[in-house]
């Protein structure tokens, strides 16, 4: 396998791993936020805001990984 093939392989595996991590993180945040809102519906607004913030923080890291993989795969 030459270097280009290895780069494609790395891009694919890396994208998958990045998505696994982000999916686990955001899934957990969403689940916990639903849990919290169901227990305390009056705190729904505050919970939603902090959920979006933490989901965005995780997503940023995930996108950072995906951009690197995309550059590996296309260039």
């Amino acid at each position, binding site marked *: 396998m030459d270097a280009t093939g290895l780069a494609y392989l790395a891009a694919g595996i890396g994208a998958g791993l990045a998505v696994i991590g982000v999916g686990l993180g955001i899934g957990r945040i969403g689940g916990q936020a639903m849990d919290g809102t169901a227990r305390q519906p009056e705190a729904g607004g505050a919970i939603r*805001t902090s959920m*979006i*913030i933490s989901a*965005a*923080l995780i*997503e*940023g*890291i995930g*996108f*950072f990984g*995906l*951009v690197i993989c*995309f550059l590996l*795969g*296309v260039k």
Partner: protein
Amino acid sequence: MNPGYVPNGTEEQHEEGLGEFILHHLQDSKEWNVFGYHVHLPTFTPVHFLGMEIDFSITLHVLMMWFASLILIGLSLMAFRKNKSSPIAVIFESIYLFIRDEIAEPNLGSKLGKKLTPFLTTIFVFILTCNLMGIIPLFGTATGNLSVTASLAIITFVMIQGLGIKQHGIIGYFKSLIPHGVPTYLFPIMIPIEIIGLFTKPFALAMRLFANMIAGHTVIFALLGLIIVLGSVFVSPISIGFAVFINLLELLVALLQAYIFTILSALFIGMAAIGEH
């Protein structure tokens, strides 16, 4: 794929072409494609400054930012007429009130929050306009360019440091970076981490906006490209259906990313200026 299918040279070149095509449409360019006519934008010779070569040519994304600014200036002029109940004025007022009540004041306190609301509103509205312009055909996404998002993040970085130093004084601000109650022997580890942390925040802001705006367009292009790669008309209903779905998702993402950039800016400024008591 049929079992006897062997990937040959032309097919591979085709796939390479699709990747190139996608990249070409996402990148900044020196011409503006209007219904097939390539309008060449003015280019200038690079200026040499402190050993760096700085290119001041007007590119597509610069043009798009100008359009966004013009749209916003026009809307603001229409909003601030004598008639305060015109629809545009009401929309602007509700955006302003939302940012003051939901973003600025909870994170910055009522005094600093009122002072910084115009800044946060400007960032929010500008990013939102740039993001939404990316969905309209003929226009480009200015926020899908790392230079643009990095400039926005640098503005936030300057605001964070400036307000932090203004509130605490230079020595007090750098002292407040290290949390209270950290034992002295941890200082050699904590100081570099906190200094790196200062630069990570705006870097993550820039990266997040850039990657989010790029990702949606890439997915749309890839879905539409599936028709060409698989070479079948029967793929097109599925592709176009999904592309429409992703386009609608892009609308949500455009709004959400503008909101997230603004709320994180407010949060970081609040952390630096008010500090943890």
